[in-house]
């Protein structure tokens, strides 16, 4: 059988290294991080030392210039750790690419090497209390004052919000009326006067992830911190959201695979009337149905990864995949809990955390309703 994704020996060896690293440096700490509500900065550094961050950053900026399959591998292996706090894919494959693709030479030289090393943890600030799916209603303002940009406003539900050293921030120029031409992206360093981190949110899941609110009060950044050309923010966001949503699909499918594997093992061991519960037809069919969905998701996902690497425009397919795989992962989480019975609801059982963590996948990076709307639009409906 021809595999959709052509992993080389180098990729396989890389996966082994990543897996071994997570097993040693992450898995033993997960419970502690979940309790603490944040992961320590030190683990970001360790990721960087191993070359597991921002793998596509070109060599001249301290990166390894590796292909997207390396990101896929890190994302999939991270899913196996059953926690979300160490949001490396967010940093490596969602936020930093804005700087790599649109940053000036100066910005790239200044920031990229430290993003690769894990010295700088990044976050992306788009969502506001009254601007979720509707980016055009964003109210955070960026006003030009000579060589400076004056930022005022509030962002919310920002992943890596507490840990972030560097922010890619979306804000609008109040003098530009057309909302689609008013948005720009700025790089903002933590510690810049006027940039304050607010509270960390209590959440259903993602307990080790420091999702926070951010405040900007006459926060001044140099004009040169703007990414790309003036007024290009909306287009940049639209362009980069394809990869962001693909990353969500990777989390969903890899997560579903892990949950199902663990549940199948449990069903083979757990006995009822002297037989393993995996021998009961009802359970068998449930498991087969879930495994079918997981395989469909995997096949769809791998095809999209291949197309994405080839640089194809797959906005429709990624929107479809984001809605379908994230709902599939939730069906699998629910079905797995069902097979564990009462023990499934105890947090001691990893499936409980997986189930809580999986719920957000159909909400963030654009809700599934938004995904269907995008697909409809690009299908010409």
């Amino acid at each position, binding site marked *: 059988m021809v595999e959709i994704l052509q992993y080389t020996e180098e990729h396989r060896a890389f996966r082994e290294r990543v897996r071994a690293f997570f097993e040693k440096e992450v898995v033993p700490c997960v419970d502690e991080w979940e309790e603490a509500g944040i992961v320590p900065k030190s683990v970001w550094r360790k990721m960087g030392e191993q070359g597991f961050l921002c793998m596509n950053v070109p060599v001249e900026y301290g990166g390894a210039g590796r292909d997207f399959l390396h990101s896929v591998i890190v994302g999939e292996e991270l899913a196996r750790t059953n926690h979300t706090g160490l949001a490396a894919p967010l940093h490596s494959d969602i936020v930093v690419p804005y700087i790599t693709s649109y940053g000036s030479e100066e910005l790239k030289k200044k920031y990229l090497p430290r993003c690769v090393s894990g010295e700088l943890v990044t976050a992306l600030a788009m969502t506001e209390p009254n601007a979720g799916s509707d980016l055009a209603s964003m109210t955070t303002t960026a006003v030009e004052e000579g060589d400076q940009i004056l930022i005022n406003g509030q962002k919310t539900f920002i992943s890596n919000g507490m840990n972030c050293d560097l922010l890619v921030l979306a804000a609008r120029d109040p003098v530009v009326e057309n909302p689609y031409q008013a948005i720009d992206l700025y790089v903002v360093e933590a510690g810049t006067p006027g940039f304050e981190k607010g509270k960390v949110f209590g959440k259903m899941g993602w307990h080790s992830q420091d999702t926070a609110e951010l405040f900007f009060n006459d926060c001044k950044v140099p004009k040169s911190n703007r990414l790309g050309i003036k007024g290009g923010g909306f287009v940049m966001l639209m362009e980069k959201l394809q990869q962001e949503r693909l990353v969500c699909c990777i989390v969903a499918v890899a997560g579903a695979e892990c949950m199902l594997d663990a549940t199948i093992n449990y069903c083979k061991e757990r006995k009822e009337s002297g037989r393993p519960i995996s021998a009961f037809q009802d359970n068998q069919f449930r498991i087969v149905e879930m495994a079918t969905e997981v395989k469909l998701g995997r096949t769809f996902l791998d095809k999209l990864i291949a197309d994405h690497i080839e640089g194809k425009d797959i906005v429709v397919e990624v929107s479809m995949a984001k809605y379908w795989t994230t709902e599939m992962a939730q069906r699998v989480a629910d079905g797995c809990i*069902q097979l564990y019975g009462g023990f499934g609801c*105890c947090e001691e059982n990893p499936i409980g955390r997986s189930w809580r963590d999986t719920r957000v996948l159909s909400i963030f990076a654009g809700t599934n309703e938004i995904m269907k709307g995008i697909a409809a639009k690009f299908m010409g409906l």
Partner: protein
Amino acid sequence: MDFSLTPEQVDIQKAARDFAQGEFDPDRTLEYDHNQEFPLIIWKKASELGFIGVQFPEEYGGQGLGLLENALIVEAFCSQDSGIGTALALSDFGSEIVLRHGDENQKRKFLPFVTQGKGLSTLAFLEEGDPQGPYETTSRLNQDGYIIHGMKTLVPFGSLAHYLVVVCQAASDEHLGQSILLVARQTKGLAPLSMGQKVGMRMVPLDQISFKSVRVPPENRIGHEGSGEYQLRNFFDEIRIETGAMGVGIAQAGLDRAVDYSKRREQFGRPIVKFDVIRNKLADMYTEVEVARLMAYKAAWSFDQGKPDHRSILMAKMIASRAAYRVTYETVQIHAGTGYMTESHVEHFYRDARVLDLFLESEPVQRRRLADEITRLTK
């Protein structure tokens, strides 16, 4: 056929709603949930006002009402808050067995504790081993009484309950089957061990309970030796109806918040309730709530008529707990990012609904039992 509630039932429903609205402080709710804490003060007040165990006769501290009236109260509580509602509903868990099968002394001694807010009760029946096999927890009768050995798991309020209703394998004669014993929580040799945090229904903490030579006086056996299975089956009918009412309440809570939020939340220049996708979700949610309610009420009504309809009762729990799960899923989805956050006060509805669905018996087991009923293969 008359689907309307009596004026008395309407009054009970209103009183329960008013109580829940007045007493279930939303911020305190989040603390209870976070700390896995039973809402003691609210439960005391509810007991004082006669909301707990209304189906128990007045001589035992109840109101002498039916399961439908109890269902109305449970639903009203859960529709205000899924966590507090389920915790209060389960505060007398297992006492139904004492009421239906206990003798006069047992009823007088134990029931007023739970109906008058003096203590909680619980039922210990599940074990870690083969669910189809004989219980490993045994009760052996000697001259002084029973001696219990074994281990029970997933026991609600295992460490808080004043007394436990324990299902044991009668060890004196293995053909006897199961017996049910009333055991005071403070009895020597009985040790609860917390099972830690759960994904939902956190105000009903679960414990594992070990029994090491626990001595129980002979008069604490409920009903005949070996009648445990029969008693448990009857109890399941009763508690499934109550669980159905919890599901209806949680689903209603999810629906109410979703309707309210979708009218307030504006995106793309209009309230999101103006979008077809949201309207369709609300229509489906409303339908699920109403179907679940009809089935739960019918099940309760059949019980109160003295002719419990097992099929309706099985369906009531199954439909209502799944309705609660699906409806609150959409409640979270409609709230989107906000809905995932604790402070939205809706994410715990979804977690609670998930656990409710697993409570007593999971949906696959219920289906199996319903199929048995339909095909008359019940053993």
